[in-house]
Structure formats: structure tokens, C-alpha cells
């Protein structure tokens, strides 16, 4: 793909000027006339029976307009996966974590709403709580949900090939246990929404979300409103990273309170409430056994994983599958067995976070592969290259690598990091490590069972023909999808990038499943391309009729019409356009016919020019149970080399250099690709070195704020080399595929492997805090 006028360049983002100038409006910037403010009452206990709720005093407080509990909201169960709807909007019999929602209030101001919460009298009978996987699985442990004995939310058992038989053929078998810690996504903008239920029965919900479509469906289902009467609008969003991928009690409470009061209701989560709502990365406890031949050939992997899921399922069904399925690649692995268990505990529910389900698994396995390479006396790079998958390979669990530049990525980071001159040659306290990973370019199936399109896009030309309006329900959450769609539309239509305007994040505009599973470039991109091609076809067909010139011999490039054969007299069209244009300030001055002129002429003949596009993946994956999770039309992949310094006295790890190569297929906007790579590295670094949500013995979060919950900042970031490895993805628009999440996969294990190289100590628990590393170093000294 080398003839693009717009794609594969470094273009400024369409949202950059507004954000740079402070013009970008977020939900919290919005005010509606007669707007009320809402607040939610949350449980002070991790596990307790609700004996009685008395709201009478709260209702009498001047300024309070509505108080709602489960009696008002009903008991419609909801969640993410219909296979496990286990939440109701408000608790009615018991609370299952410290923070569980019990009631909500709308009042004339937030202070009054908060005061009213204090007047709601709830009688509890405290129950014993289970706060760890071990406690939850213990015999006789208190149950969170009566219908799920043993506190088992979900379990997965899959086998591809025959692992036990395969182990018999192995020369080396190694088993390791690996534990990460629960995380928070730490996005800058806490959840916030404004619900407005009008007198005609239509609900408009402005909210900070990654998935307007799913929020629309859930709100409609829980509150009993027809889906067609719910409109969800996503203004600018200050980060999501996964936990904003589902409808929240905040959104449903605001909607319910607006229905009750007939007034707009605004609600925010505080930072502490963001931690309490959570839905972020699970704690995973992996035990992995890998068998290899002495020449380094991978033979079999047995992976057992327990997930600390918290009180509700959220995305957990998908998460527990992903923790196994995403180890099928990027190495040729003929035998794989996976047993996964997601366990309910009396803590906030975990959900999806960047690299959904696969990040801890990848960290565990890539560290183990490094250890195996060492035991075999092989260089970790050579070991990986020996087993690397290539384009056209299919994993043992039926994931089709329709394009895969994994080998190219490994070779690129090896060269650019100067691996050969550093591996094994650095002084004690300094180390270098490598790891690989891959990720889906959009989930192959929607969250709910449906034949729905994953994306539809409408492109509407302005009346003067000069502005191309891309209307999409897709969610720009800071990752750059609006820019990507503007570029794809400009390329497909043949117009200038600056003439494209993207209006997104509104369920009234089109269907789009949203910003999750790194899906928008591929899926919304396909629909955008098709819509632009539809518009192009309509405009050129009108032009063809007017000029009596074959459509196939016309082209649009950089906003100008070109004619392949002969000289074309378009003076009549121009005269008509100028006549139409009287009084306007931008008459055509070129000697070439512009797209703008052609589009205006098309409008005069056909009315508003509207093109539509749509996309849904073909049937993907195998036929086994759970085969849908992990399927995708395409897979991006990454290799990273990380260099660290470990202070051997304190255990502090400093990441000095990161070299990252990512195969994103055909790079739409190189700036955005690099931005996503750098963002992934930053999140991975934080997860590796510092991030952990901590609880006390009562189930209360100890560090529910950004002072005590440490994340990587600009000051923690090392030198980064980003290398874009381009392949052609046959299933992607223009050959493009993901970059949003795949790039985080190798970061943690590359750091772990570098720390081992620096210290000779393998650490099987995250994060690598100075104290954890210090204790591991000390233990090694003693032994």
C-alpha cells in the first residue's frame, strides 16, 4: 500500500486543538436547565444482610426531590455477559462488598444530596466476608451468591491436543506459579453522567463511557424503556482503559432519578468511588507447566488460573477465557490445556482492562520461557524465534494469524536494542530482557448473542459539498479513533483530511459496539471506508451523467476530480456552481473540477448525499465451548526489549530503555500508532513496578486515591524506541489492525526478565516494589 494520499502519514489529531486550548467539553463541564444532582448510598460492610431501609428522613430534607431504592428500581438482573447477569441496580437483601449500592438521592445541589444520604437509615446484620481466593474456595466459606456454590463464578476447561501425552515426549518440563495484584485503571476522568428524561418519554444520557451502545441497551433493559427511546451520548472522555466498558449504577441511577423527577440529573463518582466501582484488572494466580524438547521446540503448556473476581461477574466470563486462550500464540504450540476458575470474593468486581485477561498470563509465561531458554542454554531471542508463528499459521485453539509480523518484530528489537552486545555482558545490577505478545483486533463476537453489525457508519455531505460529515456511534476516548476515521474517510473518498469532520459517540448516529478489544480501527474503519466509497460512487455517478463521461474513468484525489482520458469540458457545471455560490466567500479558482463542486451538483440532483457502511466479522474460531473468546478477524503483535537498573541495596528497579516493535498491519496514522505503543508501555511499566489496590481485613480499600495508588508518570518513563512493523492484514481496512492493547503484552515480562538478568533473581509476584525485590535479593543471599 504505497499510493495513499492521506493514510500512512503523520497527521495531527482532529481533537488536538480543542484539547490543547481547553475547549474540549467533558460531561462535568455540562449544565442543563433545572438540573438536579444525585448521589449514591454505598455499603459500609463487605458482606451483610440488609434488614431494613428507612428513607423517610431523607425524603423530608428540604431540597431533596427523590430517593430511590430497590423498591423503586425493581430487581431486573443485569451485567455484561447475559450468561451471568448477577447484579441488580440496588441491593435488596444483602450487600456483597464495601461500596455496594443501596440507594440514590436527587436534590437541588450535591451538598443536599450527600446530606440526605446520611439520613437514610439502613439496618445491617454483618456477615463473615471472604477476601481472598483461598478463603472463598475453602470448605464452608460464606456464599456471596446462593446460586453459585463454592463461590465459583465461572470455570473453564479446555484442552487442545493431548498435554499429558505430550509431556512424556519432553526433555525439559518446568512449573512456575505467578501472581499479579488487582489494579485500578487510574483514568484521569472519574465516571460522570447527566440523564435527561423528557416529557415524551425519551431518555438522553450524556456519559463518560467507552461503549455508548452497550450502555444504551443496559439502561433500557434495567429501567424498562424501549431501546429506541434511549440515546447515549459520549462527549470527550478522559480515559477508559477497560473499566468504562459497561453500564454503571451511576448511569442507571441518574436515569431513574430523572424519570422520577422529570428533571435532568447529574451524578459523579469521586475518585474513591471509582476505586470502589472498579471493574479493572483482576488478580490472577497462574500455575503454568511448560514442556520442551532439548532443541528448544515448544511441545505443551498446562495452565491453571484462579481469578479473584470480586462480588459480581462484570466482564469476568470473558476474562477467565482470555487468561487461557491468549497463550495459543505467538509461538507454535501444539498442545495446550487450560483450567480457569473465576472466584467471587467480597471485594469490588473486577472486569476488563487493557490487554483483557491476557496480560498476567503473558507475563507469567514469557518469564517462564526465559527460564526454560536459560536451562537449555539458549539465547532467549533464539528460543523465541525458533518457535515463532508466521503469517497463515493457526493456533492450536483455532486463532487464525492472517497476518503476523512477529518474527520481524523480534528481529527489529534485537537489532535496535543492541541485544547482542548487552545480553549477558552488563554489570551486576543492570539487565536486559525480551518478551513477545499478541492481541485481538476486535472481538469476533458482540458481548450479547446477536447477528448485529459491529459497526455502521453514515457519511453525509454538507449542502455546499465542502464538508464530509462522518457520523458514527464509535467512541473516541483519547485513543485517536476519530482521527483514524477521518483519515480513512478522506482516503476512500479522495478528499482532503481537513475537509472531513467526525461526529462520534452518539447512539442516534449509528450502531457501533464501542472502544474495547482494540476493535475500532478494523471494524469502524471498515464501515467508514464502505460509507465513503458509497458517497464517492453517488457523486461520481451524477457527474458521469452530467458530463456524459464514464464513471470508471474518473477519480477523486486530494479533493479534485481527475479524468483519465481526454479533455473534459466542465464549464457548465462550474457556471452552475458559481451561480449557486453567489455571495459565498470561497468560489473555485482552480482549473480543475473540485469534489466540492461535484458534490454540490450531486446534491442539486439527488438531495442530501448520504453514504452508509457496515461491518461485522465473518464466522470465526473453532467449534469447542468458549471458542468465541479470543477470536478476531486479525491479530496485532509486539516484541519488546527492556533494560533496567536494580539498586541492589534497596531493591528499587529503574527502567532505563525500552525498545518496542509492533505489527499494526498498515499504519493509518503513524503518530497515533506510536502514541498507543508508548501508552501501553507506560501502563505496563506501572503495572510491573508499582500498581496494587490494597485492602484491609474488613475489605476496605487502603489506597483509593492517586496519592497512595502509584502509577507511572512522565518522570518514570525511560527512553523509548518505537518501531512500527507493517504487514498487510487481508481482513483489515487498507490492511490495518490493532495497536491499542497488543503493545502492553510484552512489557511486564520484558521487565521481569531484565530484572532477572540484573540480579539473578526470578520474582513471581507483581508489582516489583523495592521491598519485594529487596526481600527476594536477601533470600537469595541467604540460600
Amino acid at each position, binding site marked *: 500500500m504505497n499510493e495513499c494520499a492521506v493514510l500512512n502519514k503523520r497527521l495531527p489529531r482532529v481533537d488536538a486543538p480543542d484539547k490543547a486550548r481547553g475547549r474540549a467539553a467533558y460531561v462535568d463541564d455540562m449544565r442543563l436547565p433545572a438540573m438536579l444532582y444525585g448521589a449514591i448510598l454505598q455499603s459500609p460492610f463487605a458482606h451483610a444482610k440488609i434488614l431494613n431501609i428507612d428513607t423517610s428522613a431523607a425524603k423530608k430534607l428540604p431540597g431533596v426531590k427523590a430517593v430511590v431504592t430497590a423498591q423503586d428500581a425493581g430487581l431486573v438482573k443485569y451485567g455484561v455477559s447475559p450468561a451471568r447477569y448477577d447484579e441488580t441496580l440496588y441491593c435488596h437483601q444483602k450487600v456483597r462488598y464495601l461500596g455496594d449500592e443501596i440507594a440514590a438521592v436527587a436534590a437541588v445541589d450535591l451538598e443536599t444530596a450527600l446530606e440526605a444520604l446520611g439520613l437514610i437509615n439502613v439496618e445491617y446484620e454483618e456477615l463473615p466476608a471472604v477476601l481472598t481466593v483461598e478463603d472463598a474456595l475453602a470448605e464452608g466459606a460464606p456464599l456471596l451468591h446462593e446460586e453459585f456454590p463454592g463461590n465459583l463464578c465461572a470455570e473453564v476447561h479446555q484442552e487442545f491436543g493431548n498435554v499429558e501425552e505430550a509431556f512424556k515426549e519432553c526433555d525439559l518440563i518446568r512449573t512456575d506459579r505467578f501472581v499479579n495484584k488487582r489494579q485500578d485503571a487510574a483514568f484521569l476522568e472519574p465516571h460522570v453522567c447527566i440523564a435527561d428524561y423528557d416529557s415524551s418519554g425519551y431518555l438522553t444520557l450524556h456519559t463518560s463511557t467507552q461503549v455508548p451502545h452497550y450502555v444504551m441497551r443496559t439502561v433500557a433493559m434495567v429501567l424498562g424503556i424501549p431501546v429506541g427511546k434511549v440515546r447515549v451520548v459520549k462527549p470527550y472522555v478522559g480515559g477508559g482503559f477497560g473499566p468504562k466498558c459497561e453500564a454503571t449504577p451511576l448511569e442507571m441511577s441518574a436515569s431513574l432519578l430523572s424519570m422520577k423527577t422529570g428533571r435532568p440529573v447529574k451524578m459523579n463518582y469521586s475518585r474513591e468511588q471509582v476505586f470502589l466501582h472498579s471493574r479493572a484488572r483482576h488478580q490472577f494466580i497462574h500455575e503454568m507447566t511448560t514442556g520442551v524438547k532439548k532443541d528448544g521446540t515448544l511441545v505443551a503448556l498446562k495452565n491453571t488460573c484462579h481469578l479473584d473476581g470480586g462480588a459480581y461477574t462484570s466482564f469476568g466470563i470473558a476474562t477467565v477465557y482470555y487468561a487461557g486462550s491468549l497463550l495459543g500464540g505467538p509461538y507454535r504450540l501444539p498442545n495446550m490445556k487450560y483450567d480457569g476458575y473465576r472466584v467471587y470474593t467480597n471485594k469490588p468486581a473486577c472486569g476488563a482492562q487493557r490487554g483483557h485477561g491476557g496480560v498476567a498470563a503473558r507475563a507469567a509465561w514469557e518469564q517462564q520461557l526465559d527460564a526454560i531458554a536459560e536451562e537449555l542454554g539458549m539465547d532467549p531471542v533464539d528460543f523465541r524465534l525458533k518457535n515463532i508463528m508466521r503469517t497463515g499459521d493457526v493456533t492450536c485453539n483455532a486463532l487464525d494469524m492472517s497476518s503476523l509480523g512477529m518474527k520481524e518484530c523480534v528481529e527489529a528489537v534485537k537489532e535496535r536494542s543492541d541485544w547482542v552486545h548487552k545480553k549477558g555482558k552488563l554489570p551486576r545490577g543492570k539487565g536486559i530482557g525480551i518478551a513477545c505478545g499478541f492481541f485481538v483486533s476486535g472481538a469476533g463476537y458482540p458481548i450479547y448473542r446477536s447477528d448485529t453489525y459491529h459497526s455502521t457508519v453514515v457519511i453525509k455531505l454538507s449542502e455546499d459539498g465542502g464538508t464530509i460529515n462522518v457520523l458514527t456511534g464509535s467512541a473516541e476516548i483519547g485513543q485517536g479513533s476519530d482521527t483514524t476515521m477521518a483519515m480513512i474517510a478522506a482516503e476512500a473518498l479522495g478528499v482532503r483530511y481537513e475537509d472531513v469532520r467526525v461526529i462520534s459517540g452518539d447512539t442516534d448516529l449509528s450502531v457501533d459496539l464501542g472502544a474495547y478489544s482494540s476493535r475500532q480501527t478494523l471494524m469502524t474503519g471498515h464501515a467508514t471506508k464502505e460509507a465513503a466509497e458509497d458517497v464517492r460512487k453517488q457523486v461520481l455517478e451524477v457527474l458521469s451523467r452530467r458530463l456524459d463521461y464514464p464513471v470508471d474513468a474518473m477519480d477523486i484525489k486530494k479533493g479534485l476530480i481527475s479524468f483519465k482520458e481526454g479533455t473534459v469540458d466542465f464549464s457548465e457545471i462550474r457556471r452552475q456552481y458559481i451561480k449557486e455560490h453567489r455571495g459565498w466567500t470561497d468560489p473555485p479558482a482552480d482549473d480543475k473540477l473540485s469534489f466540492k463542486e461535484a458534490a454540490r451538483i450531486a446534491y442539486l440532483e439527488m438531495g442530501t448525499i448520504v453514504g452508509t457502511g457496515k461491518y461485522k466479522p465473518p464466522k470465526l474460531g473453532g467449534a469447542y465451548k468458549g471458542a468465541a473468546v479470543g477470536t478476531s478477524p486479525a491479530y496485532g503483535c509486539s516484541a519488546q526489549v527492556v533494560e533496567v537498573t536494580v539498586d541492589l541495596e534497596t531493591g528499587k528497579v529503574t527502567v532505563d530503555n525500552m525498545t518496542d516493535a509492533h505489527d499494526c498491519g498498515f499504519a493509518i496514522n503513524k503518530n497515533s500508532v506510536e502514541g498507543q505503543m508508548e501508552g501501553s508501555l507506560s501502563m505496563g511499566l506501572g503495572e510491573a513496578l508499582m500498581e496494587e489496590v*490494597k485492602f484491609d*481485613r474488613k475489605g476496605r480499600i487502603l489506597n483509593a486515591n492517586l*496519592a497512595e495508588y502509584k502509577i507511572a508518570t512522565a518522570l518514570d518513563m525511560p527512553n523509548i524506541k518505537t518501531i512500527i512493523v507493517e504487514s498487510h492484514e487481508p481482513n483489515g481496512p487498507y490492511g490495518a489492525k490493532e495497536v491499542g492493547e497488543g503493545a502492553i503484552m510484552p512489557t511486564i515480562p520484558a521487565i521481569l526478565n531484565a530484572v532477572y538478568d540484573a540480579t539473578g533473581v526470578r520474582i513471581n509476584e507483581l508489582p516489583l*516494589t523495592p*521491598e519485594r525485590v*529487596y*526481600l527476594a535479593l536477601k533470600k537469595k543471599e541467604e540460600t
Partner: protein
Amino acid sequence: MNMAESMDVIVVDDDPGVCEAVSEIVRSFYAWGEVYAFTDFDEAISFCLKRQTGVAIFILDVFMGEKTGFTFLDEIEEKFPMAHEDAIIMTGYASDEVVNMCIASEIGHLLEKPIRPYALQLAVRAIVSKYIKFAKRLLRDPGFAENALLHL
């Protein structure tokens, strides 16, 4: 009771990893008493208030949920009159605010995490040596000892 034997070290930090690492560091060089570690603020207070002796060395995190190392010292001060002087505060970031709080509380030892073992050793030693000097003089100077007893 021998005063030196009762010079225990009490570590309080809501991060179990920090508690464990700091305790390990102290145990590696400290022989004048036991090392006790607490991740629960209230449990640590209760432990201190039940002790027979009114001296100890305190190694405390600054922020522990809604509590602080300074409030910890305030709560045990009646039982441990020298608590502020005998405390070492640990912080992830020695901001002006934290430094000023130490000065205002007459705390002379502030260490930034990650803790350097030698720095912690010197701070503990500085506190314990005060009592060792006192004990030695009691033993060597009967007049001083008699005078000290009169002031008890």
C-alpha cells in the same frame, strides 16, 4: 527489668511488603530488643498501650489510610513520653509538608522509601544510643543514678 532488653522496635505501615522489608532490615543489625510489625494502625496502638514499658523505637509510615504516623504518636504519647523523639518517619516523598510536620512534631528522623538499610541503621542507632549512654552512666555514676531515681 533491664531497659536495654525492652528497647523494642515497632514498625507500622499499611503496606505488608514495606513492613516485612523494614523489619528484616532492622533484624539484620538490631540486637537490643524485639521487632514488631503492624499493618493495622489500631492494632498497633492497642499493642503499644498494653506494653509494660514506656519506651520503644517507632518506625512509621506517614500516611496510612485516614491515619498518619503523626496521629499514631499523638495517641501513644501519654504512655510513651519520648515517642516523638524516638520515632523514624518513612515517606514515599519527603514533601515540604511532611518535613514541616516532622519539625513541628520534634521528629528528627525522616527517611524516604525505598529505605536504604544503612540510613535506617544509623537512625535506629542514634535513638538507641541515647538510652545506652544513659544506662551506662547509671551503672558507672552512683551519684547520677541516685539523682535520677529521685526524679522518678
